[in-house]
């Protein structure tokens, strides 16, 4: 009797033991080890080394100084030119995110709630540009925004009797180009969030006498915040760390962290300073990511865990 009682427990424990250290775990290790090894060697360690580099300085012979220092960061914070670059990066990214939100909302609403055929067509229209090279899309904006009479926009303005505008090589050119390039990254999470809202909640609000605008403002908008937060994080991070768009549309007149770091590493060869800029960029992106997770989890404890 005692044996009979002990047996099931024993096999159970034995089973769990075997499952953990025997065949099944071996299977998981075999499947996952190559990728984990690859990621540690070519991603985790190099990023760590790069961050470490940012705390050293380069001597005239190209070697590193012996002791760690914050000099690169002090330089980034104290020199006017670099401070301007940091501020431009934050400003351009913030405007791009805000404009992308305003444009993405109607698109996402129609994609989710509109006519099924229109929604499907819209999905393809929004997604397709993601597969067109960023250099090509940015080139198109150079053609449109070109200063002088050959620019599409200025030609059009001249024909309706409006004065020429100087947009290429300004911050606004970078913002316009970035909105065009990154808008899909806002529309996708937003439409996913809108799709999760139960239409009967909005129906109930309408039945209770709310007009379309208050249904949107009091029901739809608050419930879509998680999607907006994900989209905003993506667009802000991608804009802040972009190179092609600021280089081709902003040139030297709207320098951003991406163009500065390229110049410091590939032209000036100041590795430690370049590493400090790259680390700052990483910190900015991480703050934005963690901030949006924190915001969503505070307001939507259940939804945040659902999204993971």
């Amino acid at each position: 009797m005692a044996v009979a009682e002990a047996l099931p427990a024993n096999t159970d424990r034995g089973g769990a033991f075997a499952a953990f250290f025997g065949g099944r775990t071996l299977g998981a290790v075999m499947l996952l080890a190559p990728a984990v090894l690859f990621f540690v060697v070519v991603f985790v360690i190099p990023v760590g080394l790069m961050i470490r580099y940012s705390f050293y300085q380069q001597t005239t012979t190209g070697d590193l100084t012996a002791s760690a220092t914050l000099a690169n960061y002090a330089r980034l914070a104290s020199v006017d030119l670099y401070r301007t670059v940091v501020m431009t990066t934050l400003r351009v990214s913030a405007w791009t995110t805000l404009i992308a939100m305003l444009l993405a909302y109607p698109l996402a609403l129609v994609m989710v709630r509109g006519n099924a055929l229109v929604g499907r067509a819209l999905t393809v229209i929004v997604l397709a540009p993601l597969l067109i090279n960023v250099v090509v899309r940015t080139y198109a904006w150079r053609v449109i925004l070109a200063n002088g009479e050959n620019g599409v926009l200025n030609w059009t303005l001249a024909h309706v009797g409006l004065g020429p505008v100087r947009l290429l090589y300004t911050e606004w050119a970078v913002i316009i180009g970035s909105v065009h390039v990154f808008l899909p990254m806002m529309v996708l999470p937003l439409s996913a969030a809108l799709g999760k809202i139960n239409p009967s909640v909005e129906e109930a609000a309408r039945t209770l006498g709310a007009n379309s605008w208050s249904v949107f403002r009091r029901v739809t908008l608050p419930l879509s915040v998680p999607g907006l937060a994900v989209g905003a994080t993506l667009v802000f991070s991608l804009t802040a760390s972009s190179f092609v768009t600021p280089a081709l549309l902003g040139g030297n007149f709207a320098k951003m962290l991406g163009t500065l770091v390229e110049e410091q590493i590939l032209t000036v060869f100041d590795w430690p300073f370049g590493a400090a800029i790259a680390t700052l960029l990483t910190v900015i992106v991480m703050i934005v990511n963690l901030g949006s997770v924190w915001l969503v989890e505070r307001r939507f404890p259940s939804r945040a865990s659902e999204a993971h």
Partner: protein
Amino acid sequence: MSEGGLGKGAVLLYAITAVITLFLLVPLLFPIALSFSDTPFVVFPPQGFTLQWYWKVLNEPDFTSPFLFSVQLGIFSAIGALLLGTPTAMGLVRYSFPGRGLIQGLVLSPLVFPMLVTGIALLRLFTSINSHSSLTNLVIGHTLVTVPYVIRTVSASLLLIDPSIEDAARTLGATRAQTFWRITRPQIVPGLFAGGIFAFVTSFDNYAISMWLADAENFPMPMAMFALISRMFDPGIAAIASLMILMSILIVVVLERLTGLQRAMSV
């Protein structure tokens, strides 16, 4: 669903949406329009009609050799991403163990980590270990940033199939490799295909990694085009842009036919 789902503002909303759609699409038409212009410079509005710029760029080594290099790089990277991503997806979907979330976070992190910084870190690594073969360096870098796409598409396919069929095959004496090849693989073909195409396209379009790892001889297409923009003033550059837009449209059509674009991009 009817327009009722949008309430009374439906007409206004459709109008606004139409304008935003134009903002998304119309800019892409200008390079195409300008590429037919019969003028020695890019001018707007385009004048005349000629196909000579297409003929010119197709015979221009500055365009054709980076193009072929990018195709080669894309194929190698897609193979690398499939070889590394498929077992990872299987491990993450089929097993649960402590630290699973951490590993998943690690292998998907290149999607959220600033890619420019990943490129700098890779350049630092390859410089310190004296790895100067830029094709090898680029394939490693592109594989790193394309693996997450394969993991996502293959995971999505794995979640749709019944794991008990695999267990049955194992019980009946098939080895792990046999089970994968004869049971699992045929069922996840759409995921493998979408992942492979995605990895190829992502590699083909990549700039943020390539800009650090390319050298003067091994020059992928997006970088060649970037360089040509500031150097080529005839409509040839518009012709190159048009050819690349055309290629993207073909890929969109293929993906839409294969799995549906939305599913392929796993949104």
